[in-house]
């Protein structure tokens, strides 16, 4: 009962594997900017769309990869649920498949988990055109290796996503946003301290001498946490967190401008504030530092600083991708990556080089 669309893709993948010509997998194209330059003949995933199964009492949604993310979110919201990882759309055409392939999560990530935490199962076509299903539609499943999560964030280099099952969560009953005036170092001290307490945190952002904190959960808990955190209420909180998630905030608008590069540094939340040569926006309670730098800035000091704080640096937008987008892997990890790629895509035709050269 394989879909005609899928049958067509299987043929294209087999042809591509035979000829060695790469395929560029693309949904809405909203994340074309991310990763190394896409190469190859276009494989448009948007024809494979639609929600396959959704029962709010199961907390599980299954949809085809080309389903618009907006549609998924609308259907969930109608049932009082959400994708708790707050995936960024970065454009009107964002699809569920692209969301999972890119593996990006929004402001709620430290408190509700990342995309990979909520992926329960995937159905894919590997680089031979073989249809494979991993994981499932249930909350707990330890049969076989967790290949469904391995697909998350692999940027389409291990398979073409066909269908995805995700865990959904109820919308919080109450949300409130507080603001405090403070410097970056003080902001990090505060957010690390709060994270160790049961405070209903659901997002933090420090930029321009101001710390904004979102609290979400049961109304009494949110009220108690707001009193504990102090500061003052921030009426435009929803708009602010939407602008962080979608990177329409003025900080990101400036960093995405001509001659600029937006760097993403994921580090241990306790990493001290460091002047890395440009304006910074800090999210995720200190675990995510966005940096607005000159397009020609040397990546080496950034990568070294991030690594020394348990993390990694990514050239997120703009800049010179020739020096690599993602933090280089050590020899052992790179060897594992190459062999996994060879297992799923022996001819190296799926999104060739999008993640690392040679993968």
């Amino acid at each position, binding site marked *: 009962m394989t879909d005609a669309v899928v049958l067509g893709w299987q043929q294209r993948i087999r042809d591509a594997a035979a000829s060695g010509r790469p395929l560029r997998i693309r949904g809405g194209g909203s994340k074309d900017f991310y990763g190394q330059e896409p190469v190859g003949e276009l494989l448009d995933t948007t024809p494979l769309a639609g929600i396959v199964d959704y029962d709010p*009492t*199961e*907390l*599980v949604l299954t949809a085809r990869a080309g389903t618009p993310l907006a549609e998924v979110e609308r259907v969930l919201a109608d049932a*009082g*649920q959400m994708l708790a990882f707050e995936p960024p759309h970065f454009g009107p055409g964002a699809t569920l498949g692209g969301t999972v392939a890119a*593996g990006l999560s929004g402001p709620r*990530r430290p408190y509700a*988990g990342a995309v990979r*935490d909520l992926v329960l199962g995937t159905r894919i076509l590997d680089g031979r055109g*073989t249809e494979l299903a991993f994981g*499932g539609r*249930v*909350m*707990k*499943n*330890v*049969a*076989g*290796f*967790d*290949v469904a*999560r*391995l697909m*998350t*964030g*692999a940027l389409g280099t*291990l398979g073409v996503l066909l269908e995805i099952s995700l865990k959904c969560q*109820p919308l919080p*009953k109450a949300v409130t946003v507080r603001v405090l005036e403070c410097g970056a170092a003080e902001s990090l001290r505060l957010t*690390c*301290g709060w*994270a160790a307490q*049961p405070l209903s945190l659901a997002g933090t952002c420090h930029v321009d001498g101001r710390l904004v904190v979102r609290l979400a*959960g*049961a109304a*009494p*808990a949110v009220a*108690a946490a707001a009193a504990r955190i102090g500061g003052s209420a921030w009426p435009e909180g929803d708009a602010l967190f939407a602008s962080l998630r979608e990177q329409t905030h003025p900080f990101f608008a400036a960093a995405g401008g001509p001659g600029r590069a937006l760097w993403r540094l*994921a*580090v*241990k*939340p*306790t990493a001290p504030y460091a002047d890395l040569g440009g304006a910074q926006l800090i999210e995720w309670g200190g*675990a*995510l530092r966005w940096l607005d730098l000159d397009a020609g800035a040397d990546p080496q000091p950034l990568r070294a600083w991030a690594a020394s704080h*348990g*993390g*990694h640096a990514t050239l997120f937008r703009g800049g010179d991708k020739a020096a690599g987008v*993602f*933090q280089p892997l050590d020899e*052992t*990890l790179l060897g*594992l*990556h190459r*062999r*996994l790629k*060879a*297992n*799923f895509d022996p001819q190296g035709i799926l999104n060739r080089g999008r993640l690392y050269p040679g993968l």
Partner: protein
Amino acid sequence: MLDSAVSSRLAALLPPEAWLTADEDTRAYECDGLTLYRTRPAAVALPETEAQVVAILRQCHQARIPVVARGAGTGLSGGATPDAGGVLLSLAKFRRILAIDPESQTAVVQPGVRNLAISEAAAAHGLYYAPDPSSQIACTIGGNVAENAGGVHCLKYGLTVHNVRRVRGVLIDGSTVEFGGDALDAPGYDLLALINGSEGLLAVITEVTVKLTPKPLLAQVALASFDDVGRAGLAVSAVIGAGIVPAGLEMMDRAATRAVEAFVHANYPLDAQAILLVESDGTPEEVAAEMAEIKRVLAASGATAIRVSTDEKERLLLWSGRKAAFPAVGRIAADYICMDGTIPRRTLPQVLARIDEFSHRFGLACANVFHAGDGNLHPLIMFDANVAEEAERAEAFGAAILELCIEVGGTITGEHGVGIEKIRQMCTQFRPDELTSFLGVKAAFDEHGLLNPGKAVPTLHRCAEFGKMHVHRGALPHPELPRF
């Protein structure tokens, strides 16, 4: 038996007391929590440093000797069953907590640290390690990662994979590797997700960084009775459907409550066909509001009685019955086997009815305990191994349950792992192409198949030997034929 030259090279890597080959010394390692299967390993190695692990693995890799890593040996699927011709690598001496960092809410621990010991060490900071498998007083974090262990609180707080930041390990060729990191994500493929639940097939774990969670200020549990098992199942869906994610949501049928009541006297209602335990945690205000809602939904779903714990002592008493379910069944039955399927919650009434049918057909009693919130079913099949053919019947009963789980869209194992116990059913749950892909993942880490051979992923050859057919998405081959 190991080749004597190889054996002496391996022995030279460790102090004499850390290399065991005598029969009386290796006997203690012949099985894990799945005691049905026993094998004596050729040798037991008890390293205490990563350098020793590296040296042992390098040597075994060169000589092509199988290696089975073992933590506390509490696993229920035979994942740590030794290989007769191989080395059993015990990580029992890796028992140091290296760091507790309240600022980043993490703990860095060696793999032999007990699950509960992490929470005990973090308690001074108001933090704990959330995944709580029932064996948490004994099981170790290395084994938890290898099995992606669950617990009664994972609906709200996640499984092991959601609570581990970084795993350091050694590949079979002796190279050290780190998956994940101190940040919330890592570059490249999500190998951290892959290592969780990999059942010791990919790497030997030598260090783990876990995420710690702030301890809730208060927890309360409601005990609800139902006069019908199916109605209790629908109540579970009603709770979730009301937008509540309880800290714990457990169900037991009458056979299970009767067994535990005689054992721990938790004051469970003995006339109820099923009971639910629904826990709420958070701030006192939060718990009060959520518990009021839980009671409302349970009453509307037909609960015949609802009792809410009034203090911590009563809460622990109500939980004691659930936590004692396995030993309680062990008391009333000569032997039992525990199944571990997961099903979509909505299929629960139908699945329980079928299990009841199987119970009559196989002539064996079965008590059901159920992590109802996440659909994870633990039927306990009771039998007497001394009665002719009862063990075979029990196994057939268990296999029927697992295949039923697959048929309704679930899985053969929610948290215990495949090990050797469920390796046959892997041939039913997955198609040959998928098994081939798993074997390819294995080969990417361990080309010669030396780490924990014969576990978790069957070869296609073995599936053919088992004569298993594949049931995919409930589509049985030849649906016109009756099946029992």
